[in-house]
């Protein structure tokens, strides 16, 4: 965990309310692993009080840059979207436990902004398949070649939710299934997988975070054995079986 002043290399809008930001932060870029996240100071003043968590969307070790993909949903993300080249932001990270990258075949299932971290993950994986869902074509912030797509309005790929793409793959053919998206979507995906497969399923969760580095207990998510896990330090990537899916609620306010 380091805290650095990152210099903004680029901010560009890539979809409806969706932005891509490129930050120069060589140390953090070097250390980051897929699935880890950063806490970004949205404004140098005291308000908003907390930093905002964002998954690393890609990290270029050689160039020392990091990329984030984010949707504007409030003041903090709004402020980030208004940054421009040359501005600087404080970046704390990398934080959390990322994906346990391995050589076997992976399936990546992403819903909406949940796919934000997949470019980084995919770049470090061997063979893998990708299923992506979103409201409409424009909201698919990342559409790599070969990915199967589903949109609620049918403007790209199959019309429907991402779960309907599960029929088109063989869940038993993967070493790991990585799921990231809204809680309802992840719950549906996990439930749709055959019990034997669930064991190898991983999810990346969001939760309201105050610190992001494990000390406040603010990001508690219900554990399957009872009690809670810290999304920031025990996650944000969890085995689906570690979590009590009945008690998980949407973290977004």
């Amino acid at each position, binding site marked *: 965990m380091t805290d650095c002043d990152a210099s903004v290399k680029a901010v560009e809008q890539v979809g409806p309310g969706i932005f891509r930001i490129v930050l120069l932060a060589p140390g953090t870029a070097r250390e980051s692993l897929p699935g880890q996240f950063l806490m970004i100071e949205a404004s140098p003043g005291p308000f908003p*009080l*907390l930093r905002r968590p964002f998954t690393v969307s890609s990290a270029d070790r050689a160039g020392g840059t990091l990329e984030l993909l984010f949707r504007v949903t409030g003041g903090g993300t709004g402020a980030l979207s208004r940054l421009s080249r040359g501005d600087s932001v404080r970046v704390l990270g990398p934080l959390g436990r990322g994906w346990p990258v391995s050589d076997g075949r992976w399936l990546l299932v992403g819903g909406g902004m949940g796919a934000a971290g997949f470019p980084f993950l995919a770049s470090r994986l061997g063979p893998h398949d990708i299923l992506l869902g979103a409201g409409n074509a424009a909201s698919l912030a990342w559409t790599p070649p070969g990915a199967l797509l589903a949109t609620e309005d049918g403007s790209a790929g199959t019309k429907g939710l991402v779960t309907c793409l599960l029929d088109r793959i063989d869940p038993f053919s993967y070493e790991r299934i990585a799921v990231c998206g809204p809680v309802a979507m992840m719950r549906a995906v996990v439930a749709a997988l055959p019990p034997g497969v669930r064991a190898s399923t991983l999810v990346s969760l969001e939760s309201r975070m105050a610190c992001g580095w494990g000390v406040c207990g603010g990001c508690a998510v219900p554990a399957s054995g009872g009690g809670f896990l810290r999304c920031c330090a025990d996650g944000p990537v969890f085995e689906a079986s570690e979590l009590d899916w009945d008690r998980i*609620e949407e973290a977004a306010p």
Partner: protein
Amino acid sequence: MKPELLPVIGPARFRSPILLASGTCGYGLEILEAGALEGAGGLVTKATTLEPREGNRPPRIAETEYGLLNSIGLANPGVEAVIEKVLPRLEGFPCPVIVNVAGDTAGEFAEVVSRLESSGVHCGYELNVSCPNVENGGMAFGVLPRLVEEITRLARSRTARLLSVKLTPNGGDILEAAAAAEAGGADAVTVCNTFLGMKIDWRTGTAALSRGTGGYSSPALLPLVVARVWQVSRRVGIPVIASGGAWTAEAVLELMSAGARAVQVGTRVLRDPFAPARIHAKLLELVSE
């Protein structure tokens, strides 16, 4: 004003007047690993109770326009796990460690202190009679001077180490509570815990926190804490440790000139774990001007 930069409180000596506040630095392991203890005079751990506690249901935190609401609910592994698994890892910690203690009864506070005495790692205790986020005990204690005195006296009988009582600003008379802590034998009082607060979505009528209310912290509360520190430090003879609203070196100095011997920094550290070093450097710069 020439503030004391190496404060002594009861039997404890601190490396700087800046202490890390309870609940905002865990048990110090993460911040130690990050190498972020520079500038911190001491550290107060997360509340520790007799039995392990899961804490409250999420959502436990909610940001408001100008502050933070939390409702962690004293989540902690319990005193035995702290003694066996946590404190040994703090051996040789770069600054003094104070264990924040909570309980449902006066006896429980004393029992936790008593058991912790088996460890030589920490320098003292902060009795949390002021948590706004639990059903029993918590701040219900802090508003009753008689109970504050009893809890303090019982704990005092178990330890010669630093004993501070953390008071609540949410009801009762904080001056009476401080006097009760002094009468009970406390070495210091911590003024104060978070302020009771709440956030509601008016469109749905739902509260942002699972328990409805929570503890509110914000740099905008500094004047409230300055007033309470000032009043309490004129009322009691024991040192006052300020807690609340300290966001900058100037705020730390203002709290010290109000009468605080040391100042805790909480929420600021959540946002910026390296804040203690920055605040301390600035503080040294300001006082040497």
